[in-house]
């Protein structure tokens, strides 16, 4: 089978790509998760200036193509302000910013979906607002939006393929290198597709299992 032969022959290329894709996605997921929580809290702040920043963030990053964001961060910043990121920095930064905007909206829905009585009970016990958010509201909110977060993680893995245009050596970049070496436009792309599919399929299975475990423990 040609596909296996080619995969084996160029396995080093593919593994480098796989490693970089996983690294990019992991950085984007962790960074986007933390930044997303912060942005969602800004969006629900009691001060209108913070609300405005949060809303603008979400609208801008969701309303413009990630490819454009990537090119502005990588080439635009370098030429306009002489801020030079490595391809890996630009790639992960773009993915973090982009997924933070989507995750912020998911978190906001989750936080607003937690019963008001939960906050009132916690506050009536003398807990401060931040304490209540951390121990009572956020754990319940995150649990309820876990499926949506999982979807976003899967999306991040796939979207990380975009950063190949600036030459970050992830799966698609390596694939294109092999295409130029072999003049075969089909097989390397098929291998790349299979690699992405295995990654996303495994991840969603793991997330499903995790979700089941959580909901078994405490059904409301």
């Amino acid at each position, binding site marked *: 089978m040609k596909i296996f032969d080619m995969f084996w022959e160029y396995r080093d290329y593919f593994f480098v790509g796989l490693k970089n894709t996983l690294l990019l996605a992991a950085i984007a997921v962790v960074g986007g998760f933390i930044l997303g929580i912060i942005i969602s809290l800004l969006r629900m702040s009691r001060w209108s200036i913070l609300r405005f920043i949060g809303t603008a963030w979400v609208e801008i990053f969701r309303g413009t193509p990630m490819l454009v964001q990537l090119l502005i961060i990588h080439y635009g910043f370098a030429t306009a302000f002489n801020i030079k990121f490595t391809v890996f920095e630009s790639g992960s930064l773009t993915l973090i910013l982009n997924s933070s905007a989507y995750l912020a909206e998911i978190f906001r829905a989750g936080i607003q979906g937690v019963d008001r009585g939960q906050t009132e009970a*916690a506050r*009536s016990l003398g807990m401060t607002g931040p304490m209540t958010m951390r121990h009572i509201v956020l754990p319940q909110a995150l649990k309820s939006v876990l499926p949506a977060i999982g979807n976003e993680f899967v999306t991040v893995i796939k979207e990380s393929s975009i950063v190949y245009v600036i030459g970050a050596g992830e799966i698609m970049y390596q694939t294109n290198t092999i295409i130029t070496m072999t003049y075969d436009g089909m097989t390397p792309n098929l291998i790349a597709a299979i690699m992405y599919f295995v990654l996303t399929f495994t991840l969603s299975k793991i997330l499903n299992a995790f979700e089941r475990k959580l909901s078994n423990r405490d059904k409301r």
Partner: protein
Amino acid sequence: MINVKNLNKSFGQLHILKGIDLDISQGEVVVLIGPSGSGKSTFLRCLNLLEVPTSGEIRFENQLITDKNYDINKAREKMGMVFQHFNLFPHKSVLENITLAPIKVKKKSQADAERHALELLKTVGLEDKRDAYPSQLSGGQKQRIAIARALAMEPHVMLFDEPTSALDPEMVGEVLDVMKSLAKEGMTMVIVTHEMGFAREVGDRILFMDGGIILEQGTPDELFGNPKQERTRDFLSKVL
């Protein structure tokens, strides 16, 4: 212990509380009754500032808690509250529900907090439920846990917001029993309820609220036996 002066609360155009004055002394059990929409719950929720009054003053243990610079969390530590819908934390076990605030707010050690929690579970008759989650409890059990959770902060006053209204009839008794023994131990209590028999038995003073004011108040015998206002008589004739 609690002194309320000319308390007003509006939601937009809606004037809910229209100038309430009330003094509650240490150890007193005050029961608020009245028709729905009369402002009983809103008034109760103003006492620990879950609702922020539009105007007026509330003093708790001689502190002006309606002052903007007052840290309301300090007062709330000493004012336990029990809600109609229990509001237990569904992601935490019974023991964690009870120990969370003592550990986080009062900085008690986990061991101390748990020891106290187990004592409280015994007094509400649920020591075997320490590791259960709220979803595994009946309504009456949830409410008894909610009372234990509030008591874990060692409050000086307990506020009850229709604690039995969401319960199946056969579970009302177990919750009222816990409240009765609390009252007997001398806890200061403010209770909004529709359980007239309970109000009469446990209350030191009954307040009848209607249209955002305290229309009439007195001992249970005065208010239930010989109501002075036409509106009070009318209400009582419908609910008794």
